[in-house]
């Protein structure tokens, strides 16, 4: 089973298991009673600035210790040195050993991790090739662009081949081509059985990666699971359905007919789109059936029928505005 679920299973069989985790930063509660499990696959961690994403990621990566609750990665506490074998973390920080080159950095990190010195050069070359830094490996880190440093961080995260990858803002500073390559890389890692938790504000890329999201707000989990489940939680917010038909002359007739149904809250015809009708409703499944029925009865071919605002951006905005 791929995805996120509430904590119900034993901690040693899931990649990530968090139970009632809270973390204080002085007087400020950074994370409040967070419980969740991650299954193999890619999960996105979304939230506005200051919602606790980095705190949660630091806790999972064993850089912080929870004030209450516990975190386990395949049953092992990530704070301990044993737990560090199981998680690869690419943090949001941008501090490096500036006088080292990319190659030096990875070689020395590999040595520090205890990898046999004979195997280090070949391993590092392989990883540099995977992240696309092979041709620039001798560049000093202080001279690298932000994108190169991001890739270096990801390379560091996969150095020990851990089963869980935690990537904090991996797309930040990367150009569109680089982002596409990174998406491909993450999908490849997913297909090799890794569990990946990725946070980002680049929601287009997140949409390409996964439909499983964990949404944080003010240190609490407001939603965990498919985006649609999050969407369903917004009971008070109507859904907008876009209907595109072949013949623009019949659009007004369609609008008048569908408006008669009680489940339809409103209709409107967007400017510049003569073939499109937008229908507002809280019960999209029922309205779908009405629309289909009307189109069949009146011989109105439908080009497109979809719910418009189920993208993470809109859901996020809705959730966080509340």
């Amino acid at each position, binding site marked *: 089973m791929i995805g996120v679920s509430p904590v119900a299973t034993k901690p040693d069989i899931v990649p990530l298991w968090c139970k009632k985790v809270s973390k204080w930063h002085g007087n400020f509660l950074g994370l409040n009673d967070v419980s969740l499990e991650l299954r193999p696959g890619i999960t996105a961690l979304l939230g506005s600035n200051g919602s606790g994403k980095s705190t949660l990621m630091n806790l999972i990566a064993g850089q912080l210790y929870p004030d209450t609750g516990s975190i386990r990665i395949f049953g092992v506490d990530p704070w301990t*040195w044993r737990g560090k074998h199981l998680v690869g973390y690419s943090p949001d920080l941008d501090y490096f050993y500036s006088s080292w080159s990319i190659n030096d950095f990875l070689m020395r990190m590999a040595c*520090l*991790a205890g990898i046999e010195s004979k195997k280090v050069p070949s391993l590092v070359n392989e990883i540099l090739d995977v992240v696309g830094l092979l041709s620039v490996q001798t560049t000093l880190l202080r001279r690298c662009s932000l994108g190169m440093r991001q890739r270096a961080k990801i390379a560091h995260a996969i150095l020990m081949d851990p089963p869980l990858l935690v990537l904090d803002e991996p797309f930040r500073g990367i150009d569109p081509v680089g982002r596409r390559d990174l998406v491909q890389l993450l999908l490849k890692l997913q297909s090799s059985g890794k569990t990946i938790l990725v946070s980002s504000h680049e929601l287009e890329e997140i949409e390409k990666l996964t439909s499983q999201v964990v949404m944080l707000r003010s240190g609490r989990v407001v939603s965990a699971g498919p985006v649609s489940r999050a969407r369903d939680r917004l009971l008070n917010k109507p859904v907008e359905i876009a209907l595109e038909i072949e013949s623009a002359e019949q659009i007004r007739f369609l609008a008048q007919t569908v408006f008669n149904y009680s489940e339809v809250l409103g209709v409107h015809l967007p400017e510049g789109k003569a073939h499109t009708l937008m229908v507002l409703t809280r019960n999209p499944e029922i309205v779908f059936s009405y629309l289909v029925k009307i189109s069949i009865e009146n011989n109105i071919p439908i080009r497109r029928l979809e719910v418009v605002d189920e993208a993470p951006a809109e859901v996020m905005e809705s959730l966080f505005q509340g």
Partner: protein
Amino acid sequence: MEFLKSFILGVKSTLAVHLFRAKVGHSLFWVSAGFLLLVAAVVVSVSFKNQWNYKTLKPRGQAGFNFKNSIEMIEAGSMALGHNAGVSAICSAVSGASSGLLIQSGLPVFTKNVVFSVLLGFLLPLWCLTFAVEGLGSEREGKTLFWLFSKPVPRSSIYVGKFLAILPWVIIWSLGGFFVLAVCAGDSGIFAFKLFWQPIALASITYASVFFFMGACLPRASLIALAYAFVVETLLASITYASVFFFMGACLPRASLIALAYAFVVETLLGSMPGSLKQLSVAFYARCIMFQKSSDLGVVLEQGGGYGDFSQTMAICFMLGIALMFLVAGIFFFGKIELRGQR
């Protein structure tokens, strides 16, 4: 067993990566080098004038005559009493022996004026601080501790490995600096180096342990600096350079400042305080060892000061104990560090 294997692996790998990677060219290093050159220049000028002896110094309680004058008077007396062979012979023997003693009096003069005061009181803590605080302190300030903490080895091994990586630099710099000063002083200095290199090395290891701990584990200098300053201020009636420099640490969250303040306040100030206060400084125990070593040769370096109260063995044990205590404390506190606000 698994922990031990990982610990050894962690120490070995940290040592392998960081042993020769100490940041040599940072500003503290150049300041230390500058101080060494300055003191060496002074020592050379004293050597040039052949002043590493008691000739121009006055006997205690005497006004007007220095030792050289006293010997000249004895020689003059010997010549004046030439008609009395016995007395003249005695005077000649005394003046000859005294002249010989004066010529060889470089050790106490060099030790008291350079080793005890300038080297142990100012230069050695500074040299040790130069490398030791930067060991993990630079990682803290540069926010690169994460790269160490993310490794699958115990944090204690990282701490110990980093400490062992900076230790050779500390010892080389301390002994090397002492050797340079000793060579500049000529025979007296070289004799002093041969006699005192062990306590200097031991003191530098102890300082390294203390300053390494400060660099690794102290996130904010302010509270500790205030506490130190309060202690110092209640002990002293007036402001001194070292204690007011120490106030500086109150406003700047740098572990290096605490270390600097410790070096100047505890080591320099308390090291010259009466009674048992000076036993708080590492330099005191180094001086005890030197005192005992020179006493074995019949040379009393300093009257009073309490340096004769501790045997060499006791002083060595104290210094090693301090070093070990800070090492253990460092391992404990370093293991508890959480990385916050790294952005």
